Every structure is written in structure tokens, then in C-alpha cells.
């Protein structure tokens, strides 16, 4: 069986919620490209994930076009991570947040020498933001500014 098509499902759902017809972003141009400048074993990697992960003590995300993000120290105790989201079944993420926020595997790959290191802070947000303009003009520039400030060599992005 081929991959599940999610675009029709999401369109239907927005229609049910009374939103105007959802116009999916389609980019027919050539994507931008920045080559990796050194081997992964020398790179410091950043991570941003949209599975709604937060740290116990942080304000949780809400479910209506939340464009905020949370900063998560990359040395956080995994037991302190929580998951909240409207668009996927949370039961696995709540017992093992690594399914949407692969922090333990990344730390292991640093110990093994596969990666040079990790940014001291990672970022999480909600996704499922109806307005692509708000993502392009607000969330994406704020996250990019952080990646530049953090001096990462590459960034892994994990949506849900």
C-alpha cells in the first residue's frame, strides 16, 4: 500500500471546522540550498520539532494557531518532557517523547562520534497553524534567527 495522503483529510477537517477552503502551500520553484560545510562528525546540530513537546514547568501550547515556540536545553532529563497536540494520537509520545523529538538518539550519536555535537538549546512548537503567512513571516524568521545565534552547522527538523 502506498503512503497515506494527508492533504485531502486536512482540507476536509478545516471545512468541517468552518474555515475557508485550505490552500495548501505548493512550491514549484527550486528549493534553496546551503551545502554542508564539513563532515557530520564535526558538525554541531540544531533540532526543531513540531510535535508540541514542552518541559514540565513551561506553559503548554494551545491548539488554535499557536505560533509560539519553546526553548529546550539539549541536556534536559527526558523524563521532564511532555507532549500536547491536537492532530495526532499522543499515547506513544507521552510515554517516549523520542518518537517526535529524538533527543536521546541524538545524544547517543554524539557519544558515538557520528555527530560532532549538539546546539545547547533545541526548539519545539505546535505546527498545524492555519495561516502559512504567519509561519513564513513570523515563526520561520524567529526560529532562523535562533539557529544563527546558536551557531549551528545544520538543523534537523521533525514535524508530525
Amino acid at each position, binding site marked *: 500500500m502506498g*503512503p497515506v495522503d494527508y492533504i485531502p483529510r486536512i482540507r476536509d477537517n478545516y471545512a468541517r471546522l468552518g474555515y475557508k477552503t485550505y490552500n495548501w*502551500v505548493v512550491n514549484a520553484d527550486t528549493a534553496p540550498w546551503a551545502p554542508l560545510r564539513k563532515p557530520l562528525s564535526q558538525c554541531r546540530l540544531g533540532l526543531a520539532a513540531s510535535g508540541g513537546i514542552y518541559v514540565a514547568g513551561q506553559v503548554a501550547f494551545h491548539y488554535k494557531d499557536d505560533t509560539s515556540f519553546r526553548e529546550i536545553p539539549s541536556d534536559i532529563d527526558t523524563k521532564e518532557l511532555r507532549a500536547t497536540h491536537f492532530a495526532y494520537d499522543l499515547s506513544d509520545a507521552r510515554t*517516549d517523547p523520542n518518537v517526535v523529538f529524538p533527543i536521546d538518539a541524538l545524544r547517543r550519536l554524539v557519544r558515538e562520534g557520528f555527530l560532532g555535537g549538539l546546539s545547547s538549546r533545541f526548539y519545539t512548537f505546535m505546527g498545524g497553524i492555519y495561516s502559512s503567512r504567519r509561519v513564513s513571516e513570523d515563526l520561520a524568521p524567529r526560529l532562523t534567527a535562533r539557529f544563527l545565534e546558536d551557531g549551528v552547522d545544520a538543523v534537523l527538523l521533525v514535524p508530525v
Partner: protein
Amino acid sequence: MGLVARHAEAAGIPTLCMTSARDITLAVNPPRSAFLDFPLGHTAGKPHEPDLQRRILVEALSSFETMTAPGSMKELPFRWSEDEEWKAKAFAEGDDRTPRHDTPQYQNEEDRRRAEQGGSPSCPVCRS
């Protein structure tokens, strides 16, 4: 997430998007992506299977060194199960999203209490 990838990449930062929604990612067209054909909520693997999670990441991250063309998508060589019953279920049930509340949705009440008391001191941007 593809929009974040394109923005960061345009600013000079190499990115890789993992994804379990191939149609969405192909439409948004990020610079590099790695497709894992798993049910939503498992973009980086199965719970409590650290060796599998590690193998998935190694396969995905290797794309940084092997991909040469913008818009490339690697199909990761992992299957959720021998049969593909989860897909039949995903097709049949459609979208099962929960209502869109605009107040914080905590995993548990203890989290709410801690956050309302001012949050963790180690968290400089609890609300940003």
C-alpha cells in the same frame, strides 16, 4: 515545517526535514527530506525502541552528506509492521483532530500548577 526549512536554508543553514506525510512535504518542497512511512506521531521512530530510533536517525542524517540536489527526498528503509493495517485504518477514519482550544493544554494538572507558579527557573523562554 517545510516553510521553516526553506527559510533557514535561504539564510545559509543546511536543513533536513524528516516526514511521515509524503504528500504534504512534496508540496511544500523543502531542500532535503527523509520519508518514514509510519503512522502520524512517530516521525522519529517507535516508542521504547532506542536502537531503531538510532538507525532511523543515522539513515536520515546521512542525507546531509549524500544529497546534492535541492528538493531531494530519501525513502527510509523501515516498515511499521509486516501488514499495513494501520494505513487502512488511517484511510478509513480520516482526520481525528481534537477541538482547537486557545488556552494552554497541559499533559497533566501538575504541569499546569508548576507553570502557573512561574515555571522552571532553568527555562528562560517559557512563553516566547
